[in-house]
């Protein structure tokens, strides 16, 4: 395929996405429910790609996503909740006055959350990133739980276990999708730069990477901090989408959603992760009918009750992991050349089968 054809293909894809979003956004197709699921998928895509940056590209098994997400979510909640509601939300103990005085626009609150998360990541990254594989996973998981518990205790800042509601919501689909395009775009650029190659070198063989002059602790921390920054941005968008946050949402099971997405999409594939985040988020919603009672010809099928959805989903995942152990994309990225090769392969196979049939008939 020529470069021009590829550019045209990419252009058509982007245009199609923009038109689709515009159609959804103006309620030409779909409804509020579909819109919400798509928004959630876009936000999950940001968080999953940033998780993949650490887990898939740098080869560090980190499970701290929920904690960093909570930082972003609470940053947006605390700084954007309108002043007139503060006293009614914080009814057990009033919000700290110095904090109540700071009201920020949405984008600024997002960035503040991101920067706080990145700073914290550097702080814990320095000691923790010396660990490897499962030890690192436990340490980061613990960190994420610490953040959740601290947020539950900080009554005057986060309103404790009650959480914060009445956060100004997202009114248009352009916000989550635009943010996803920008955040994922920046991460792709980072991955394709020489720093991204250094990350991959660490994933492939850290001893060799160090012998090639790559400073392990610096690059691991960099990857971890960038990932935490974008996770917090995703968390902030999540808070704005739901318009309410409380620490219970950021229980460590939240992290497993993203782990699932990156395993399904392919550790080390950005496009795979984006596709998987739409499949998982959409699939979980689509499977909801398993939770409803079902009767066929007047007979009630007893296993159709709430909870079956997760059973079915888990079985589907197991099947997928068994047959696609590298996920949908492995470490590959979507490319027109790849599509073209697949097309040629299928064409070749069709030709062969039709030739066989002809041969058999004669």
């Amino acid at each position, binding site marked *: 395929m020529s470069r021009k054809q590829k550019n045209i293909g990419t252009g058509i894809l982007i245009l199609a996405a923009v038109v689709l979003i515009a159609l959804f956004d103006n309620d030409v197709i779909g409804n509020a429910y579909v819109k919400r699921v798509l928004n959630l998928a876009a936000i999950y895509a940001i968080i999953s790609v940033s998780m993949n940056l650490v887990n898939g590209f740098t080869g560090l098994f980190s499970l701290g996503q929920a904690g960093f997400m909570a930082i972003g979510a609470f940053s947006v909640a605390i700084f954007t909740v309108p002043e007139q509601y503060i006293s009614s939300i914080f009814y057990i103990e009033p919000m700290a006055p110095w904090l109540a005085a700071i009201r920020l626009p949405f984008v600024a609150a997002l960035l503040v959350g991101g920067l706080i998360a990145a700073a914290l990541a550097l702080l814990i990254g320095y000691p923790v990133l010396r660990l490897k594989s499962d030890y690192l996973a436990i340490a980061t998981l613990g960190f994420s739980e610490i953040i959740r518990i601290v947020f539950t205790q900080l009554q005057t800042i986060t309103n404790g276990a009650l959480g914060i509601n009445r956060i100004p919501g997202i009114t248009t689909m352009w916000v989550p999708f635009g943010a996803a395009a920008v955040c994922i775009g920046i991460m792709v650029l980072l991955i394709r730069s020489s720093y991204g190659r250094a990350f991959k070198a660490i994933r492939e063989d850290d001893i060799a*990477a160090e012998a090639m002059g790559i400073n392990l602790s610096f690059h691991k921390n960099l990857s971890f901090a*960038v990932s935490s920054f974008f996770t917090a941005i995703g968390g902030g968008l999540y808070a704005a989408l739901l318009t309410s946050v409380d620490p219970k949402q950021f229980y460590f099971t939240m992290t497993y959603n993203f782990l699932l997405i990156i395993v399904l999409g392919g550790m080390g594939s950005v496009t795979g992760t984006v596709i998987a985040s739409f499949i998982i988020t959409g699939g979980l919603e689509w499977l909801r009918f398993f939770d409803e009672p079902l009767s066929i010809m007047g007979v009630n099928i007893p296993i159709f009750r709430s909870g079956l959805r997760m059973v079915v989903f888990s079985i589907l995942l197991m099947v997928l992991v068994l047959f696609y152990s590298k996920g949908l994309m492995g470490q590959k990225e979507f490319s027109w050349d790849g599509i073209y090769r697949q097309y040629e392969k299928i064409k070749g196979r069709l030709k062969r089968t039709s030739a066989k049939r002809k041969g058999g008939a004669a």
Partner: protein
Amino acid sequence: MGKTVLEVNDVTMQFGGVVAVNNLSLHVEEGEIIALIGPNGAGKTTAFNVITGVYAPTNGQVKFKGELISANYPHGQMRRKYLGEQETLDKYSAKKSLTPDRITKLGVARTFQNIRLFKNLTVFENVLTAKHMRSKANFLSATFGLNYKEERKNRQETDELLTLLGLYDVRGEIASSLPYGKQRHLEIARALATRPELLLLDEPAAGMNPQETDELTAFIRRIKEDFHLTVFMIEHHMDLVMEISDRIYVLDFGKLIAEGTPEEIQNNQRVIDAYLGVQKDE
């Protein structure tokens, strides 16, 4: 000639109760090809790991071009447990250990005994990654492509290096899919991309047949001239060692037992004993 590139002074490396390297002293002069030989388990690779900063020595010091890169002395608990040569016990009092990446930055590159390529990356990416160390862009300017000139130069130099080393035609292949001999070449190419002055080769001919070994001999000679290198290698293939080396060091059970030109080593009784084993009359 005449400038000392690498200087190892009284290096002892002790792991628990095992003294892997015992009081090793050697020096490598600019432009030389030096071999370190010895039976299996003699401590050759450990010596390399001390030089490249993977391990901090228990005692002794390592200097590169006169600059101290790692030094240590037995202190604390190790002082009591020290099993190495006692004479040099109190000779040193400095403690310094640069990390491997800093040592590489100074101009020491190495290859590994069991090939350690970036397996899932292409040949081109493997070599290009080694250029990262010398690039000056910070991560923000690199992300937004502000260092495109440097990046273009790095890519060009990588292609030139691959052409020079006969790997250009496989530049797009995944490293682990290359045949064994090419993987060895690629590992050397990757080390050369860090622009070293001293190249450490850990058994470059391991697993090679005689013909491949001959090619490798010529290859090492050639890159030594082309890149103005000093080469220090561990090797078991005696024909390669004897043909290429200016001087040879022989290790046995962590101790240096001989040093000299290939002819001297070939006729050294202690070396022959170490390799063939000797019946001791008690």
